[in-house]
């Protein structure tokens, strides 16, 4: 039941003085909140303020612009293109980026030989620097001198250059991104699976449940909080995708097919020095992600944990 119902049922009204628990809670939270306030919340507020001005690169005071930046965003075809690409990217990477790692975690949680080696193999892409790995990918995928293209040509496959083709660039970025992040969610799921008490499985087995039933009745419900975490983080991360698109296809990709919201923000803010416009796109992104996250938390009733 919700905490609100609980409060009503127990007839509790909040005391005038904070109780011991509340003081303790704030003590635990204070250092984190302080750091976040200074180094995250303040920049967010500043960025919102920036988006309402017309920032000029000079020592002069900034001009007030009201919502002009947002209006400009609305009319900007490149912005809509970036939004579309971002949604396209999210729609593929989130489901695959949750299901595949879960499958891997389930497989690698069992007592199979070489388990540690396999886990490390899948985690290797995660710990590498994407900028350098992208150099490697671009080399290997070069249709003329790349190793992969060369080997594939013996199998009769045509000269394909995904990163230079407007239709294949985004799928290539998606695949590269999945490759990079598989291990990340896998490890999170492994940690979640570890926390499930063996006794639950033993009890289920005694009751005659087969593997599928055990998964459905024990594993899946026990993974609930992990699932919520992975889903929320994946969506926030997918909407803010920068590295895969930026390092695999700098400049926005062929015909801007891999320009995402954040690479567009980078382009506007840092390359073109339109910091206020970039900030307004950032605030838009912020609002979208905020609403999506709130919706997810509501739907999964995370409050009741």
């Amino acid at each position, binding site marked *: 039941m919700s905490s609100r119902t609980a409060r009503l049922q127990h007839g509790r009204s909040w005391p005038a003085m904070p109780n011991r628990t509340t003081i303790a809670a704030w003590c635990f939270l204070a250092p984190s909140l302080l750091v976040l306030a200074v180094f995250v919340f303040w920049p967010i507020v500043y960025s919102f303020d920036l988006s309402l001005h017309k920032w000029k690169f000079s020592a002069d005071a900034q001009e007030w612009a009201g919502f002009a930046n947002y209006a400009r965003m609305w009319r900007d075809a490149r912005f809509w293109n970036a939004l579309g690409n971002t949604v396209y990217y999210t729609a593929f990477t989130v489901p695959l980026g949750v299901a595949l790692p879960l499958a891997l975690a389930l497989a690698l949680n069992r007592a199979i030989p070489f388990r540690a080696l396999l886990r490390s193999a899948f985690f290797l892409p995660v710990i*590498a*620097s994407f900028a*350098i790995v992208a150099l490697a990918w671009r080399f290997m995928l070069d249709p003329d001198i790349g190793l992969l293209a060369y080997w594939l040509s013996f199998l009769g496959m045509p000269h394909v250059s995904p990163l230079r083709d407007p239709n294949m660039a985004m799928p290539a970025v998606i695949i590269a991104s999945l490759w990079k992040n598989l291990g990340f969610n896998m490890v*999170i799921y492994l940690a979640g699976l570890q*926390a499930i008490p063996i006794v639950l499985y033993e009890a289920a087995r005694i009751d005659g449940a087969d593997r599928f039933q055990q998964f459905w009745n024990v594993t899946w419900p026990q993974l609930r909080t992990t699932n919520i975490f992975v889903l929320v983080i994946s969506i926030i991360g997918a909407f803010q995708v920068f590295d895969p698109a930026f390092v695999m296809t700098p400049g926005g990709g062929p015909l801007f097919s891999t320009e995402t919201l954040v690479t567009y923000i980078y382009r506007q803010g840092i390359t073109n020095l339109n910091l206020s416009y970039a900030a307004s796109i950032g605030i838009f992104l912020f609002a979208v992600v905020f609403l999506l*996250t709130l919706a997810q938390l509501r739907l999964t009733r995370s*409050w009741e944990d």
Partner: protein
Amino acid sequence: MADVLDSAGPGARPTTLFTTVTLVVLGLLALAVVFPFIWMLFTSLKPESEIATFPPQLLPHRWTFENYENVWTRIPFARLFLNSILFAGGVTIVSLLLDSMAAYALARLQFRGRNVIFVLILVALMLPFQVMFVPLFVTVHDLHMLDSYSGLIVPRATNAFGIFMLRQFFVTLPKELDEAARIDGCGEFGIYWRIILPLSGPAIATLAVFHFMYNWNDFLWPLLITSSMEMRTLPAGLALFVGSHVVEYGVVMAGAVLALLPLLVAFVFAQRTFIQGIAMSGIKG
């Protein structure tokens, strides 16, 4: 071997056929996943002139360690390595502490405004760095923390991702433990330190690896905050081999291989807590 225990996974003892098939599939998949690193390793052992050739070869024609020598001599590798350890290690330790404390409050303590604070912390994840970096830079500058370890570490001293992750994990631990401890007169910090943390081995270890890895590989933040070679970290050092027109692929790959090793070691260590985790959750029942 401890993990011969039928670990916390479903099913009776799996058939040998099933295990073999799974192993083969996973093995092939793992090989495909790891292939770029094999390429990187061999590239680092080639002289630069052999790297962009046609037809492309995986193995070097002339094996050489010159790229590794270059990494060591042309940049202050030891200093950069040390700075990376201090930066990534410092952030990891401080962040684990602050994250877990905040997560404990959010997961285990009932207080007014808890959900609001929870959402507020998530909000910290929602504005991309590319927008925030200007005010962030200005703030660090105004606090006179530029070009110092504190400037590098303090803004990262806590992490909304970490708080969220640990909160989700703490929530799964049985509440009876807390209540029993409170009855015994244990204070909140005691419960946090002596009960919750020890039971959270896998999650803490995982988060530690994430924090360490993220900060170890972070290119932009240390570059923004530091302006002298003495304070730079490894990614910035490796970037010195990437010119605006000419990229020295062999040296870069050698540097990348060297930079990967500590992370791999950290991951392998973290894995051990996973096995311990099994034992604990068994006893707990």
